[in-house]
């Protein structure tokens, strides 16, 4: 199996890796590039813990073959805060007590961010729709929905 080189721009910084093709984008970002903020909860697209923004779209990186994302612009949770200032969604998650174990939170925050980028004043239902691909087992979602709504107000 031939190894191949992939190039990604992650959170504005260029990365390259020399990889075997049977890896997912999530594997490469976590294990080779050591950005471990994205999590693996299922590996099969069902939980959203591995959520990243790839070329502007929210995806589950556990189902994206690493070479398929070659050349892509990628945002992971590590790139959401800017110059040490938390993104309003991040800040709202803290303020509203929306974080418990934290395992779902990177994916939730990216889903919330993409929602607000596209729809700055979502209603409750739209927020719930936007995070329906992100399972959270700790919070029951109420405080997460409140946090995203609060970030929209911020």
């Amino acid at each position, binding site marked *: 199996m031939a190894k191949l080189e992939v190039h990604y721009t992650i959170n504005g910084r260029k990365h390259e890796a020399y990889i*075997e093709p*049977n*890896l997912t984008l999530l594997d490469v970002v*976590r*294990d080779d590039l*050591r*950005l*471990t*903020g*994205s*999590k*693996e*909860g*299922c*590996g*099969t697209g*069902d*939980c959203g*813990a591995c959520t990243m923004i790839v070329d502007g779209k929210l995806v589950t990186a556990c189902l994206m073959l690493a070479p398929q994302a070659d050349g892509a612009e990628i945002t*992971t*949770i*590590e790139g*959401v*805060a800017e110059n040490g200032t*938390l993104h309003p969604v*991040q*800040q709202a*998650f*803290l*303020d*509203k*007590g929306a*974080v*418990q*174990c*934290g*395992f*779902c*939170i*990177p994916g939730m*925050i990216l889903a919330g961010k993409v929602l607000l980028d596209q729809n700055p004043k979502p209603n*409750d239902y739209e*927020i*719930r*729709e936007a*995070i*329906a*691909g*992100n*399972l*959270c*087992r*700790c*919070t*029951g*979602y*109420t*405080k*997460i*929905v409140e946090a995203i709504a609060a970030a929209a107000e911020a």
Partner: protein
Amino acid sequence: MTTYSTVGKPITRVEGSHKVTGDSLYAADIQLPGMLHCKLLRSPHAHARIVGIDASKALALEGVERVITAADLPTFSEKRMSNRGYNLLADDEVVFNGQPVVAVLAETPSIAEEALDLIDIEYEELPAVLDALAAMEDGSPLARKPIMEIDRSEAKGHVSVDVKEERSDKPSNIASQAKFSRGDIDQGIAEADCIVENTWRSAMMHQGYIEPHSTVADFDAASGELTIWSATQGQFFVRDQISNMLRIPETKIRVIGMELGGGFGGKIFLTQTLTAVLAKIAGRPVKLIFTRKDDLQGATPSAGCVVELKTGMKKDGSITVIKAKIVYDSGAFPGASAVVGAILLGGYYRFPNLEIETYEVLTNKVSVGAIRAPGAHNVTFAIESQMDMMARELQLDPLEVRMQNAVSEGDAMPTEVKYPRIGMKECLEAVRDSDLWKSRGTKQNGNGKARGVGLAIGGWLGGLQPASAHVELNGDGTVKVLVGANDISGTNTSFAQIAAEELGLPLEMVSVATGDTKTSPFAGMSAGSKTLFTVGRAVKAAAEDARQQLFDIAAERLEANPDDMESFEGEIRVKGSPDKSIPFRRLAGITTGFGALYPPVVGKGSITARKQAPGFTAQVAEVEVDEETGQVTLLNWGIVQDAGFAINPLSVAGQMQGGATQGIGIGLWEEMVYDDEGKLINDGLLDYRMPTALDVPNIATHIVEVPSEEGPYGARGVGEPSIIPGAAAISNAVEDAIGVRVTEAPITPERILRAMGKI
């Protein structure tokens, strides 16, 4: 009422922003030089003898380092092997589909995975026992070799009960059983104006933490030291177990409880010993991360249960009798909380006549373990549904009937142990006053959709374990709290609040660290709703101790009496004379600087918890049922819970909402489905359905505070009760909506249509 400055306030987490920036480290994030990756080959049969294992092809695969079977592992006495924890890899016989048989160690996870397919195992299939009721019958084949000993040490972390379990004398699938009785059953039946009798079933379900089981182990041969990075709710428990099993002194084991991606009782001790042994054998660090399928097939889910329940009530609403048989399907090893189930089933109401038999039965399924309030939701589904049915038949108000019969301080549990002060009635009162409850029957049904409102309560006794903590004054006058309990639900924030309260400091001046087993004071596992209840008390005691030390020093400096000191806004001062004071910063200087006059201030708190503080909840569901498809939509959900004292109302509410949502999952969707051969069919999260954000409404919370005797400031454990009544509340709401009763949870559209006679 005492007023507090810091505790009792809704405070966002103090441990910083790392959970929202992706900087927190979980066990799977650990990468060590030279680390090998482990994958487990699991049994495809529910019950079989292992005839032979041929791993030669796997070993030939480039990148495969070792292939390990039970033959390579330390052996334990046959007695010990009755317990799941000692069965690292199956030896000779597999007893559930999904049981690990072979471990492959390879340079990458994908090579390890590929190697699994190259291993040939020859099995001789044995009869599989899959149904717990059938397994109890005389003449049933045996699911496994007879159980010789049951180690309940892990279960005790969740709930403390002292009941003698019995084991049957002839070989059987019954691992344990117990019986409780009181009064005269026949009389109780004769006195009743209404008798309801039903069989209630609830499915085996999974804790559903989003982070799968993960452990990394490293053994240093030169020093004999073992280091474990693990996703666990109980790092000290892991250390003690490994020490016992592998005969390594506790001083040589360092367990680092990493940030935990959810546990809910299911992540205490499972893969750590195996990973440690593998690291020792390989002489390299080993990482073992479960896939989701591994976790669903082979972790320790929550037991399925059948409750045969007969209850009676008089026209005036008083209950006369309970007679029940509870059967928990424990899977292939002991692990179901049969005794606790019986105590709760007969323990919410004042039954004058009672007879409850409870059984923990072995089958060839994955063995079960704890969950939030293990065993409680199953029996609560039965009793809380049946309370409604009796009330309905006698045309009584379901809330008032509960109020009338509710246990309170001094009433006896089925064990005849008396309840301390509890808040069940206060919870019901809060429901009575709620708009959601008052809205019953007021909204119109229409277009084939019926609306209903249902209520159910739940209670949990709580675990007891000793705990300790340190509170130290830093060089700059800030304060450090050190504990050994893994923070799984924001407990560290509450600890900071407690220390700040006791020392009269602003919260920003207190930091809390959870150390590992080498560096931190002992704590029990973070389970059983007791972390705050026990470790919180230790923190309070440690802060009080530190405060006393500060008072003594300050008194000497100010030439006052230590008894006249008070701590206020970062200063120690003489009561009534604010100008006679010393700031913490100065006290830090004279206790930690060069040539300091006084020894450093280190407060120690060690407590042992002896008195349970049961926590109750009452929850209300409002549903809409589509009468043609059986689809249930949740419109509203309200939860009331007695927190004793909410040290941090924000995190208490978060616990309530999370638990209630799990209870909703149990009520509507979650079920591990096995085929006729004992294979789990829904082994992924698309078909093992946990609620998404679209499936649940906003969850309204209401905290009541009936102080406990021992808890810090009167706090009670709040983690567990919230999960308990979901299925019952939904079952009651569905009957309110469409007049039929579903006796099996989850209450699926199909079961509703069957109950309605539509299919």
